[in-house]
């Protein structure tokens, strides 16, 4: 991750932008070749925010569920199930 890339070409930027676009959920449904960069960045930001909100939400649900669990054996079961799936 050093900054010894020298001159980055526009083509490389374009590739990076395209690979970022491929990660966004909406672009998997659409087949457009390329949205404008600023729109793409906005979608990226809102996608990151929604993922972070989901982490918060799932943390809350886990916290609730944990308060109802009290013995040790369910944890071993969880760990086994996760590694099976």
């Amino acid at each position, binding site marked *: *991750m050093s*900054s010894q*890339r020298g*001159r*980055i070409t526009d083509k*490389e*930027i374009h590739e*990076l*932008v395209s*690979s*970022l676009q491929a*990660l966004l959920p909406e672009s998997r449904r659409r087949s457009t070749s390329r949205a*404008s*960069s*600023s729109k793409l*960045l*906005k979608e*990226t*930001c809102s*996608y*990151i*925010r929604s*993922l*972070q909100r*989901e*982490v*918060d939400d*799932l*943390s*809350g*649900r*886990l*916290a*609730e*569920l*944990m*308060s109802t*669990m009290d013995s040790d054996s*369910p*944890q071993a*079961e*969880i*760990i086994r*199930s*996760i*590694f099976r*799936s």
Partner: protein
Amino acid sequence: MDLEHSSISKPMIMAFHFLGALSHIQKTTTHSTFVCRCHRIRCAAYTSMALSTGGHSAWSRALLRGKLRRGGLRKRAVILQRPRKRAVRLEEGCQDGADVLRRLVPGSAGMDSAELLDETADYIRCLEEQVSLMRSIVNVVSSL
């Protein structure tokens, strides 16, 4: 337990760390409030995300540094005023979007656009894995 990271996948490492943290949290928060437990689980989630990448990306190092300082995820009050390298430039009108992205992705404040896009892609992939892991855990636990 003998772990060879080269032969164990990233999701497994993430699961290992996160489940270990959850187990520890459960033992130590029996008398804590819901908010306190929720906050600790959230911190554990980001820590296990950062640990699973092995420190290859700047965002994971920034998260772990923040945790070591016991400040959690600190907001950057001051954006570093280094002179921006103008060798890399997105289209005009994208700088606002790029600045918002720099606030969202940890450790990316001083980066140029190419690095920023790289880090963002990596961060998104890791977030998705973490979310999927947490969903599986919630499904399994709620069906017990």
